[in-house]
């Protein structure tokens, strides 16, 4: 669970996972043994989203003409 996240993870899913962790914590449905793991997982999710949000998306420029790669140079 503390493994790397799926790079295809969507924002929404990441946030959802994060909030799930919050709910678990709020409901105190987490035991101390798992706590650090969950926090780590939360950190990964946050970092993932942050990175995704802040990245300048050079790749996106490439991707942005995707279906028509050759057609339109945006």
């Amino acid at each position: 669970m503390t493994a790397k996240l799926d790079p295809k993870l969507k924002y929404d899913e990441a946030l959802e996972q994060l909030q799930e962790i919050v709910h678990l914590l709020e409901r105190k449905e987490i035991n101390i043994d798992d706590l650090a793991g969950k926090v780590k997982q939360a950190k990964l999710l946050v970092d993932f989203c942050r990175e995704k949000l802040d990245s300048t998306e050079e790749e996106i420029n490439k991707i942005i003409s995707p279906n028509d790669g050759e057609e339109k140079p945006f």
Partner: protein
Amino acid sequence: MLIFTAEDEELEDKRNIFSLHALNQSLERFIRDKFALKNYWVIAEITKAQEKNGHHYLELADSKDGKRVAEMSANMWFSTFNRVDNQLNGELRTIFKHGNKVLINVRIEFHPIYGLKLNILDVDPTITYGELEKQKKETIERLKKEGLYNLQQELKLPAIIKKVALIGSQNTSGYRDFLSELLENRIYTNFKVKEFSVSVQGDRAAKEVIKAIIDAQAYNVDVIVIVRGGGSKMDLNVFNGYEIAKTIAESRIPIITGIGHETDDVVADLVANKYEITPTAVAKFLYVRAGVFRNDLQTAFDSVLKISQQLIAANKDEFTHTSKYLVHYTQNLIREHNNLIKDSIHQLHIGVTELIESERSKLELNLSKVGNNAKNTIALKKSTELNSRLDMIHLLSINSIERSKIGLNNLAELLMLLNPEELLKKGYTISTINNVDLVNYDGELKDATLKTLSSQHLITSKIIDVKNHE
């Protein structure tokens, strides 16, 4: 009809020939006299609309069963137009458009040169609007019927919209407002915008917008935004068109509209994934969404940390408590046992003391019982055994003596009775013969020796003679 009446009159009067001018003047006068103070509300369709020096010139017609049954020119002077246009929030220009039905208040005027005309004094837009509304409703019905109406709603807007295709008229303020708001706000600006410039009003508008929507879908964008920076109500009508709505509905990329208007929605708004009233609002929506997302992210993560730390702190607390209780209860237990043992010793002490005291008093009791019983025995013996016996002896002794006394007295009395001394004192005597009382003597009395005792003498005599009593 009135015109004909006038003509008839003049033709009847004389065969005078009038100049056209005179005729027209007469007509002018007649119409002025007849109609100058009368207004009429007229419904007609605009077949042509022209503006010249601020004045508006309309060609009106009326059709029945596809056939034109009436035509008339009408004009609206600059000042009247401005007044009414103001009242209608500047909508008047779009109402005065080819094809629109209008309800107008007119006065009939005749001008010697321009002929008969209707002077428009007021416009009631409801008929026009109603007509538009009718068309709009028909379009919506059609879209619904064709399953297009809700298509966009099925597309999910991504949490973060970073790549935006923008369709609008580059020179309009709405377009510019959108871009500046999107890229210069303080919340989130990391957007990529692909612009598609089109006209948004006029005859070309619909076609251009449709093309842009289709083109935009070729790009890897998160959303297509259509903006229009305000305009008249009638201009909006472009976005009520069926074709645009259909294109929007069929877009596989979510479309957000920001077609500036105040009240009425346009069909494009209704079929779009989302609509805002103004382009600025769309931009705001986009960056706020990002901001909210980031905020949610931050909040969630903060919560994770906060709760985790609270959880740990709470556990530590619980823990400290538990540890304290552990010590407390342990000490209690030991203290209690120490007390228990102390109590046991105390009770032992008391028990021993009580036992010994009770034995002591038992001893004392027994001893005093011994003493008392012994003394009682002695007292009893003293009071009963000895005294009673002594009394008995005393009594019996005295009795014995008394008895003896009585016996003695009896004897003494008997003695007294038998004692002859008293008889002798009285002169009696006792005589005996041979120691036998004379009375008892039965021997020969004669010559016997008789002893006689008197009180004073003992006389011895011989019996000489004896005479018997008879």
